């Protein structure tokens, strides 16, 4: 059965539609929320510090202070709380949870990502500041895992976000996650944790992939 026009759903968020409002002086004007309420600048590539020694030191500091965004996207998020229990205690490694993406550096995509969640993930990722790292957890983020044929779950995360470390398993145990963090630290110290710049460089490609599956794209291209 094909979808006829009558049943075609409106994808626009009614709150973001252009609207005519009347100002206090009685003049009416158009408010376009997408332009007026959101910044639509493109992300910039932030080059590393020109002095290699300084950059090396800063990378060391970054690797020792990984602030993780507390955003559980899928079933794998159940594996994250054990990390901060006495048994695993990732605080030892300079890893801690932050409740807001503004202050976080690491985004753990914990398991399968539905299209709906992907939209939120993209928004949160873009709200994080450069440098930022993505840790993809579980086979679902590698190839879709058991949801490989689902109509609503992505298969490969790296088409949508630059992934620094994949941690395989369904689900990976906390030890595996710690191992993943160690790998991430190595990468950062080697200066390879430039996911944010990669994202900015290949912005159009990522955006095209994201928009291909997110049909109701009702947000600016880059969520500052």
């Amino acid at each position, binding site marked *: 059965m094909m979808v006829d026009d009558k049943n075609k759903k409106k994808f626009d968020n009614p709150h973001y539609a252009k609207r005519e409002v009347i100002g*206090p002086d009685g003049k009416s004007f158009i408010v376009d929320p997408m332009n007026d309420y959101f*910044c639509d600048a493109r992300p910039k590539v932030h080059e590393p510090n020109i002095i290699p020694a300084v950059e090396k030191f800063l990378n060391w500091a970054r690797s020792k202070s990984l602030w993780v965004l507390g955003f559980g996207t899928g079933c794998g998020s159940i594996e994250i709380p054990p990390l901060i229990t006495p048994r695993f205690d990732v605080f030892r490694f300079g890893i801690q949870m932050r409740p807001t993406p503004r202050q976080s550096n690491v985004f753990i995509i914990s398991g399968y990502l539905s299209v709906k969640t992907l939209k*939120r993930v993209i*928004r949160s990722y873009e709200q994080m500041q450069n440098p930022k790292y993505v840790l993809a957890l579980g086979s679902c983020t590698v190839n879709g895992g058991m949801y490989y044929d689902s109509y609503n779950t992505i298969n490969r995360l790296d088409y949508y976000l630059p992934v620094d470390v994949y941690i395989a398993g369904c689900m990976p145990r906390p030890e595996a996650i710690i191992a993943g963090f160690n790998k991430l630290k190595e990468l950062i110290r080697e200066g390879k944790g430039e996911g944010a710049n990669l994202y900015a460089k290949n912005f159009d490609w990522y955006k095209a992939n994201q928009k291909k599956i997110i049909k109701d794209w009702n947000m600016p291209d880059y969520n*500052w």
Partner: protein
Amino acid sequence: MVNPIHIVSIALGVAFALGFLGKRDKLSLGLVLSTLAGMVAISAGWFIHFLNSSVEPLQIFTGGFKPPFAINLQMGLAEATFTLLINVAGFLGAIYLTKELLKTGKNMMLIFLVFILGLNVMVMTRDLFNLFVFSEIQSIALAGLIILDPNRKSIPSGFKYVIATGLISSFLLLGTVFAYYFSGTLNIDFISQASLQYVKGGAVAVFMVILAVILELKPFPANGWALDVYESAHPGIGALVSGIAGTTSLFVLYKLIPVAPFISDILITLGLVSFVASNLLGLSQTNPNRLLGYSSIGQLGLLSATIGMQQLLGDKFIFIALTILISHFFAKAGLFWLSGIINRDDIKDWAMLRKKPILLVLFGVFIFSLIGFPPLPSFFGKWSLIMELSAGNQYMLVTSILIGSFIEGIYLFRWLGYAIKLDFSDLPEFKLNISKFLPTLTWGILLIATGVVASAEMEGLSGLSYWPLIFIAFIYLIDELPIYIKNTLSIAGLAFYSWLTLPELYYTDMLRFIFMGIFLIGGILTLIAGYAYKGKRRGFYPVALIMYAGLAYIIQASTTLEFFFGWELMTAGSYFLIIRGKKSINHALSYMLFSIGGAYAILAGFGITFAETQSMLIASLSQLSNMVPLVFILLAIGFMTKTASLGLHIWLPGAHAEAESDVSPMVSAILLKAGVFGLLLLMIAMGNNPQIATIAYYLGWLGALTALVGNMAAAFQEDAKRLLAYSSIAQLGYILFALAMMSHLGWLTAMYYSINHFLYKAILFLTIGAVVLKVGTHSMYKMGGLIKNMPLAFIAVLIGIIALSGVPPLSGFGGKWLFYNAVIDKHWYFQGIIVFFSGIVAFLYLYKLIYSIFLGQLKDNLRHVTDISLWFAIPIYILIIGIMIISAKPEWLLQPLGKMISQWYPNGALAWNGGLATSTYGYWNGNGVMITIGIMFTTILIWLIVLSRKAQKVKQFNIVYAAEAPQRPETTHQSYNMYAGYNKALGWIVAPKITEFWNMMSDWILSLAHFTRLIYNGNGQRYLIYILGYFVIIYFLVF
């Protein structure tokens, strides 16, 4: 000089001649009018004659015999005055009734003429029986006039009138005859010489005579018949009944008092009961004519009481009685005439007056005259009355007069409020008939003129210059000109006055200099903002200037009368300023009521002072030795109505919040300081008295609680201006607290706070007012994010709130520092704690104010709002410069203040070393702190700019929103009920108990009024029973 008998003769002659004129009504009317004019001329001639020379009164003996064999009339100054009043009123009343008289024909004109004639003879006659005859003639004529406007209502009321007056005159006749029987004469003078009160039976005779006259004055409750006449008769007739018939009866009463001197005491009681009760009943009236009837009866009651007080008042009696009488005479007739012009049955419809603004002005003049505002005559009358009564230690009388006046104020100002504020678009257009307008206008002008004449008679008013008032009158005359001309002139006027007074005050009196500076400079600054308004802004400048004139008078006053004059003038001006706001009808009324109440407290206080010291100088307050606490409390209550201390504050929030944008700072930053100034004067004068210390202690607590409740309530407001208004209450609470400390540091704090509060509250109110003008709403939660549109306003508010909150380095901190030192110095720790606590509560509302308006989310409809008007920005930034100077160089302000206060409290002064102030406890270097913080702030700013100079500028929805994006700014702006948790915890402190208390009071009074008025059940017979009962009861009271 024409013999006064010709007043009678020509009136009678013309009355008879009218019968020969046939149907020629216009001619008849012309004849009647010219007759009345002739009568006016005769009485005016005699009036001038007696005014110029102190000649003996003229005695006219009819029939050539001397009394007791013939009737004699007397023409003296009093008679000339009253006949003049009667005849002028009759003449103008006839002009007013031209149309009606022409319609009903010459019979009515005849009756009208006879009515005036009867009144004239009643005034002049010295014969008791003659008095009876002419009073009957007058009543019969009046009974005829009542059906001039024949409607369903006037006929029964006329009938009630006829039987009631018939009964009353029968008593008069009976009394007259018995008086004759016992004294053998009918001449009043001979009867009084016969001292009938000592003769058995003779006393009853004169009692009957005098009581009949009293009953003619319609005392409560034997007055139902008169009220019906007032309500149903044509207002033109009502004017005559209330104005001249009442006046005549009063004169007759005055004339007859020597016959029965024993009645004086009971007369005072009867009069005051009538005064208070009628005014109380007036509260629940909606029909303007009946309302005026109640008011008339009340005034007649007051006047008859005044006649009873003849002995108490001594020399002043004539002046007092005459000023109050004339106020009543002009105002009541004028109001009735206005009622006839409007011709509506509900006082709410009087908003119609606004279609002809001159009528509204007249209405205002009449109302203010009845209440007794300067410069109208009754102001001086009431002042002298209270002074003299206090001097005689008649405090009960003072109290009841003030209570009655206060109740009268309630309904009169409610009515005035209706006329000024209610919507009048639905009401019909009306034509202003010149014959109706002219008499009314004449009355208004005469009222003001007599006020000016009366003021010249007053002692203790010499220090006041009338030039400001003349200037204001001039501004009123050019009201039609565009706003910038009037504004410029007003500013120039204030500037000129400042130039005239300030330099002189600077060298002579620092205290007055500071307050004068706040009033005048503040006035100029707030007026600058007025340029932002478009159009003509009718009526704004005169009233604003009246307020400033009143304030200036207060400062310059050296006598209590001058002070009170200025105080009442300021109240009147500010009332009109407040009532200009959009929804301020009720707020203005409650402001006025609290103000009148406060003013009467002040009046009573001054009266007691006068009683003891026999001096009207303000300085005489300090010489008081008896009843010091009472005077202090009375005056303090009066002043605290203006400073809106807890309990007396409920008028303020609404009044300030609803006022116009540039009026709010006038009434908040400037006007409230008048109360502070009053308190200061009071404490300077009486502070040395040891009895005051206890009261001051409680005042301190009151100030602290005011501060707490004000700030707490401000934190829970959603209306920006209401928030600031509550903040004003709290700030004035601080000042009251500091004043009550009565120590050097306490007063320094109070003065410093007064100046600071003026600066930052003017900034805040002006800015918020300007913002409100731009965004069109007071509700803070409807604003938000305006910082980008209105940077100027934001900076102003930021400076304002930093200064208000007392955060260093701005000037507010100085106040807090002084406060700590003063509190510890005075050992008022617990009050101090409450004050500090409330100071911190202030952060709640200050943050809410700036956040809800300028930060957070910008709303759809405000996206294109522009910055505040330049005309607002100019005064705001001038004030900001003032704050900055005081903050950086506090010693420039504090040193002279300290020097001034050392006059009264030399101990505990601050020691200054450059910018470093040292008290007994601590030290503070305002200058150094400012520099240190400035350098540190700049350093950190530079550091952050170096680090994050490339920050991406984002827009309002680019926030972390739990992985979503906000949908609407309205739902994202966290402002409404911002301190819900705090409200849950401590909101009980600001439960509106005080408002409930006042509401309960007003409910009680209203239900009492309603309950009492049920005695007038409309049955004429019942009214007769009241008359008889009154007669009997008074009889038993007297004998």
